[in-house]
């Protein structure tokens, strides 16, 4: 309805109602405005400068001058021609696949176990999982470091006592593989509780009768899992897998602190650490920005599934 029509045809009363309606329609926008402004200002502007930085030479001198030198695509060219980038990408991919597979695999087994044990054991194990979950990452790293140090770490002691082998003064930080294996243990230990407890909650929704009916029909363990349990778990499993991929690909604190700055080396870089060392630590912010954009692009692709799923959830309500 145009303004002219309104003034001629509508009584003043109707017009007020229209205005009130307009006011009411604008309410949700006023409600989201503060968040939009905050996020836009604090994240939008840096993201814009990230793109600009990636096309500039920007080091410490430029940081002080607050003015970068435009160099076109040089940063991207330099990164994409760098062997370290491709090696790091490959290493991070293998690391992510291993970590996600272990987290989801063990998490599923734990959830299935939780359904079958007695109530007291279940409460105890759930409590233990929540306790592990609540440990701050930085704290967990320090504890891991203490448990695995070569001189008097308890891991070497236990492995030797259990006759797994002679681990007396075994140095877990000697090889890249061993370093990343420790990081994997730490990441999986930290992520397991969330996965196991979420899957357990989903399992609790599997109707008991369905399983019993399958048992009467003669189905055994694996078949019940494949044909009854798994289809119900599938949506949750997909979301958990997707979240784990995103988190593990971008992991920073665990490898950075556990391997330790003095031992961080291009041969054990993961993506997050690579970015920190090459961009921030070497104060080569322009090149770091180019690496950031490549990393953000990869994660954006990895996130599509999860974000779409969540939008559906949010939209349905």
């Amino acid at each position, binding site marked *: 309805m145009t303004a002219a029509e309104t003034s001629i045809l509508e009584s003043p009363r109707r017009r007020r109602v229209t205005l009130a309606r307009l006011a009411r329609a604008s309410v949700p926008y006023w409600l989201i405005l503060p968040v939009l402004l905050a996020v836009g200002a604090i994240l939008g502007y840096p993201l814009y400068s990230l793109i600009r930085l990636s096309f500039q030479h920007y080091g410490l001198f430029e940081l002080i001058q607050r003015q970068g030198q435009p160099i076109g695509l040089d940063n991207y060219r330099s990164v994409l021609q760098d062997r370290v980038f491709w090696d790091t990408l490959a290493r991070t991919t293998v690391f992510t696949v291993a970590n996600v597979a272990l987290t989801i695999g063990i998490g599923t087994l734990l959830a299935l176990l939780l359904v079958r044990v007695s109530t007291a054991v279940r409460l*105890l194990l759930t409590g233990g999982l929540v306790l*592990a979950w609540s440990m701050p990452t930085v704290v967990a790293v320090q504890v891991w470091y203490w448990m695995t140090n070569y001189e008097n770490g308890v891991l070497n002691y236990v492995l030797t006592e259990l006759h797994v082998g002679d681990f007396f003064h075994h140095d877990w930080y000697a090889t890249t593989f061993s370093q990343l294996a420790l990081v994997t243990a730490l990441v999986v230990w930290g992520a397991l509780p969330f996965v196991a407890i979420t899957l357990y909650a989903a399992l609790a929704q599997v109707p008991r009768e369905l399983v019993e009916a399958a048992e009467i029909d003669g189905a055994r363990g694996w078949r019940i899992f494949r044909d009854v349990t798994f289809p119900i778990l599938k949506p949750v499993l997909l979301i958990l897998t997707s979240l784990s991929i995103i988190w593990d690909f971008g992991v920073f604190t665990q490898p950075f602190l556990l391997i330790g700055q003095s031992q961080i080396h291009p041969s054990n870089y993961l993506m997050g650490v690579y970015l920190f060392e090459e961009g921030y630590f070497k104060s080569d912010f322009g090149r770091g920005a180019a690496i950031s954009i490549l990393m953000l692009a990869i994660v954006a692709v990895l996130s599509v599934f999860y974000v779409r799923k969540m939008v559906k959830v949010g939209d349905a*309500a």
Partner: protein
Amino acid sequence: MKRGRVTRVVLNVVALAIFVVVVFPVFWMISTALKPDDEIVALNPTWLPTTPTLSHFSAAVERPFFWEDVKNSLIIVGATVTISIVLAFLAAIALAKYGFSGRKLFIVLVIGIQMLPQAGLIIPLYVVLARYHQVNALTGVIVTYMTFVLPFCVWTLRGFLIGIPKDLEEAAMVDGSTRLGAFFRILLPLIAPGLVATSVFAFVTTWNEYIFARILLNDQSKQTITVWLSYFLGTSRNTDWGALMAASTLTAVPVIIFFLLVQRKIVFGLTAGAVKA
């Protein structure tokens, strides 16, 4: 029947073994923190301290900058959580109770931001904040944390708000209340537990944050407790494991307590809707 019982016992034993492995790092942290030095470095370690001592705890808190950095953490956490909860609550009402065009886009924003890898943002945040002299300032860290805490709070609070039956709200409005009146008299008391849980979880996330604090705060007196803890080893040549574990325990305890209180209420926000088959 017999076979079933044996399986059950075996499964229970396996579960107990897993419990031991999962809890061990936390146990070992506290146990080490309470042991005297000779027990810590003993070749055959004892599981529990035979002569418990609190000396490592006093050594840890007497380290330089412990109290300053705890204070910094509390200021940052307090400001971030308070501002975020208020702003996020408004946006959560819009998402939970209104249909509007652009809603979908807003949801994409809220979910998408939480997926951004933090390492990918250190460069631009550092450069931009340096430009406005907000490096080494607590305010710079507070606004940075807000970008991540805000979307999380919006999404979680939205979940709590949806749980409130529409009839209750409508009943209040039929009684002659305005929408605002209905909100304050009906909605607010119902959502209070959700607000508390979300705040506590935001507290935990903010308290634990490491990478942004590490790059944005260089001055030792300006750092947060997690950064302080991460530098603990670097400050001494002979590693003082007892003090390190005592410091770790002190950093973790407030988080563990809060987390245990609200974990059940919060965790399903991330997978909300997917659990319902």
